[in-house]
C-alpha cells in the first residue's frame, strides 16, 4: 500500500502530495502547450503562408477522433467513480474502454500522419506544416504517455492493487487524462478549425 502524505494547509485544502505534484506538472505542461499555440498564432498573423481551414487537414476524421477522446474522458471518470465505490469489475471495464479509446485516437493520428508523409507534407515542408506537426505531435506524445500510464494502472487493477482506501494513483491518472483531453480541445480548434 502506497503512503499518502497530505498537505495540512487551508490554501491547498488537505490535498495529497502526489496529487499536488501532478497539478504542478500539469500547470507547467499547459504552459508548454500555450507557448506552441501562441507561436503558431504569431507566425500566422505575421504573414506565414497558411491554407484555408480544411484545405490540407482532414477535419471530419479528426472530429471523429475528438469525439473518441471526449468519450474516453467520460469512461475515465466512471472508472474513478467505480474504484471509489469499491466496484472493481466496473473499474477494470471502464479503464479498459479508456485504454481502447486512447489507442484508437493514436491509431487514427498515425493513419493521418502516414497519409501526410505519403503526400510529402512533412514538418520541414513549410511553417504551417511545422506548426501542425509540432502541436499535434506534442499532444500525441501526451496521449501515448497516458496510454502507457493507463496500462500500468490496469495491470495494478487486475492484481487488485487499488481499492476504496487506496486509489491515489488512479486519481493522478484521471487528472492527467482529462488534461490531455483539455489540451486537445485547444489544439483541435486552433490547428484544425480556425
Amino acid at each position, binding site marked *: 500500500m502506497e503512503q499518502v502524505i497530505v498537505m495540512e*494547509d*487551508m*490554501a*491547498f*485544502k488537505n*490535498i495529497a502530495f502526489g496529487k*499536488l505534484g501532478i*497539478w*504542478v506538472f500539469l*500547470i507547467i505542461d*499547459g*504552459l508548454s502547450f*500555450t507557448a506552441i499555440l*501562441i507561436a503558431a*498564432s*504569431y507566425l500566422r*498573423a*505575421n*504573414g506565414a503562408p497558411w491554407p*484555408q*481551414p*480544411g484545405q490540407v487537414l482532414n*477535419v471530419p476524421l479528426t*472530429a471523429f477522433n*475528438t*469525439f473518441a477522446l*471526449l*468519450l474516453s*474522458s*467520460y469512461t475515465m*471518470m*466512471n472508472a474513478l*467513480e467505480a474504484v*471509489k465505490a469499491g466496484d472493481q469489475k466496473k473499474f477494470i471495464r471502464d479503464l479498459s474502454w479508456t485504454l481502447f479509446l486512447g489507442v484508437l485516437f493514436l491509431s487514427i493520428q498515425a493513419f493521418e500522419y502516414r497519409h501526410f508523409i505519403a503526400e510529402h507534407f512533412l514538418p520541414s515542408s513549410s511553417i504551417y506544416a511545422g506548426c501542425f506537426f509540432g502541436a499535434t505531435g506534442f499532444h500525441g506524445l501526451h496521449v501515448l504517455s497516458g496510454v502507457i500510464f493507463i496500462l500500468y494502472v490496469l495491470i495494478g487493477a487486475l492484481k487488485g492493487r487499488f481499492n476504496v482506501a487506496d486509489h491515489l494513483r488512479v486519481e493522478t491518472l484521471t*487528472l492527467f487524462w*482529462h*488534461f490531455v*483531453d*483539455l489540451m486537445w*480541445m*485547444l489544439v*483541435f*480548434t*486552433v490547428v*484544425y*478549425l*480556425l
Partner: protein
Amino acid sequence: MQNKGSYVYVAIWLFMFTALEILLYSQAGLGVWRTWGLLTLMTSKALMVALVYMNLRQEGWALRVAFFAPIPVAIYFLLFMLYDAAYLWRS
C-alpha cells in the same frame, strides 16, 4: 465529491459543443463571428473539463489560482506578440 449525474451532463454538453464547433467551422461566410464563436466554444469546453472533470471546483483556492493565473498572462503575451511590429514597419 461531485454528483455523478453532473459528469453525464458535462459529457453531453461537451459532445454538443463539439458538434456546434464543427457546424460553425463550415460557415466561412460568418467571418470574424466564426472565429469568436469557435474560441468561445473552445474556452467553454476547456472550463467544463477543468472545473468538473478535474474537480477544480472542489479544490482549495490556492490550486484554482495556480491553475487560472497563467491564462491572463498567456492572453497578454498573445496580444502583445500577435503582430510583429518590426515586420509591419518593414512592409
